[in-house]
């Protein structure tokens, strides 16, 4: 008798678990759907007001018109060419500026001496707005690729620099004692203690740098170019092709988000040891 009740209890428990699991899955889907409600409502209203002729298509083309423009641009091969150029510029500038930011950040973080000589100057340069140096870059390097890539590099440099420096300086000094007791050499001290411990900050710097690289890209392409998504937007504006402007903006938005998500995936894998409040 008691045996039987035990078995039935077991069954109840397992079915309860199953119900809970499917409930949880359902919950996840609901949360995802919640995020879509608002944009979909907006899109529908937008489309309808356009279709009823309430808003001029030169000001706000309908979502369906933007989609057709997008497909047209892809089919002619134009869009992909422009996108490639933009991506190349952003990547080149980001790699140049980001690498420099990381290296200088590491050097300044390690040596008080270097910090005292270099950091004040860098902090001063950091506050100079990117837009303000555009005329100078054009004078020095012309309208070519060099000035664009350097502009993006200037933007990408600072977030990585500041955060790498901060990360290195926030290593737990108690772990330095451990490193001494375990006889870490200088190289091991850097690769096994300081860099791993600075990694959360470095990755944050990376994300911010990528964001700034996209921003700087637009500024660079708007300042004058004959290719790239930024050019596409400027060109379309002159001919009042508003839907192309929208396509360009949406591409920036989507790829900004995609690049950010890629770093976030890295963050999740590399920082799974972290024990922080997860909300």
């Amino acid at each position: 008798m008691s045996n039987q009740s035990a078995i039935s209890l077991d069954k109840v428990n397992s079915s309860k678990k199953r119900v809970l699991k499917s409930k949880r899955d359902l919950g996840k889907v609901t949360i995802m759907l919640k995020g879509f409600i608002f944009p979909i409502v907006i899109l529908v209203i937008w489309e309808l007001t356009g279709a009823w002729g309430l808003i001029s298509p030169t000001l706000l083309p309908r979502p369906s018109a933007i989609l057709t423009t997008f497909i047209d641009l892809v089919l002619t091969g134009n869009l992909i060419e422009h996108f490639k150029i933009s991506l190349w510029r952003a990547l080149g500038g980001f790699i140049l500026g980001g690498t420099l930011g990381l290296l200088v950040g590491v050097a300044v973080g390690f040596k008080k001496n270097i910090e005292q000589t270099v950091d004040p100057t860098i902090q001063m340069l950091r506050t100079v707005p990117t837009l303000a140096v555009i005329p100078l870059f054009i004078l020095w390097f012309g309208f070519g690729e060099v000035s664009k890539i350097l502009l993006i590099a200037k933007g990408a440099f600072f977030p990585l620099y500041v955060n790498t420096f901060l990360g290195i300086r926030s290593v737990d000094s108690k772990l330095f004692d451990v490193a001494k007791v375990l006889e870490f050499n200088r190289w091991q001290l850097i690769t096994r203690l300081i860099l791993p411990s600075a990694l959360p900050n470095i990755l944050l710097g990376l994300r911010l740098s990528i964001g700034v690289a996209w921003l700087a890209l637009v500024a660079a392409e708007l300042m004058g170019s004959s290719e790239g998504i930024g050019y596409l937007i400027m060109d379309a504006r002159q001919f009042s092709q508003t839907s192309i402007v929208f396509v360009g903006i949406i591409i920036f938005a989507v790829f900004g988000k995609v690049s950010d998500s890629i770093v976030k995936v890295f963050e999740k894998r590399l920082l799974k040891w972290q024990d922080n409040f997860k909300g």
Partner: protein
Amino acid sequence: MTLLEINQLNKTFVKGRDVTHVLNNIDLHVKNGEFITIIGPSGCGKSTLLKAMAGLDIEYSGEIKLDGERVTGASIRQGVIFQEPRLFPWLTVERNIAASLPLTNSEVKQNVDKLIKLVRLEGFEKAYPKELSGGMAQRVSIARALLRKPKILLLDEPFGALDAFTRSHMQDALLDIWKEEKTSMVFVTHDIDEAIYLGNKVIIMSARPGTIQNIINIDLPFPRKKSTKSFQEFRQLVLREFEKVEELELIDSAGI
């Protein structure tokens, strides 16, 4: 045979115009394979003394010799266990134990596995420190020190932050390790029972300036039982020493 030798050790802290005499004429000899516990009220300099032995603090007068050689800095010859486990949070248990040594080396890997067994952490090799309890984390740090085959293990109130059950369990684990590895131990604590339970010798220190007040040999066989009459007699003896020092605050705080 003497393994660790401390001769006429004096230390002062200078802060502005204030000069505090922290350690006063400390003489201490630790024999090979001996288990020494150091007990004293807070502020008596017992942790400072341990830091000096570890080579983490070398600003003192007098000398400390390990195996006949002067201690000039921290090294793997003196393993140190801190009050907190101080593990690298980004490394798994086995990687924490190996730390600077490559786990790809089969000899290192073998020794790490052996130590994981010794500290009873089988099945947790791939766990991160955040997944461990306080006692488990402290056992990882003990294994990390033992992997380097230290001549002496210096422990600075290693179980101070643990609850009573875990603490008494860890004391037995440490005694097992001591029996197995025969590593000499210097164990700093503020818990009288712990000091008597573990040590061959209990060093009683008094404060301001930190001085060795008395050394009591505990000639009870292991494993010891805290409830036995002989254990309680030693406890009385140590307590009397404390009354001589007139450091009643400690006795109060120990809940006696």
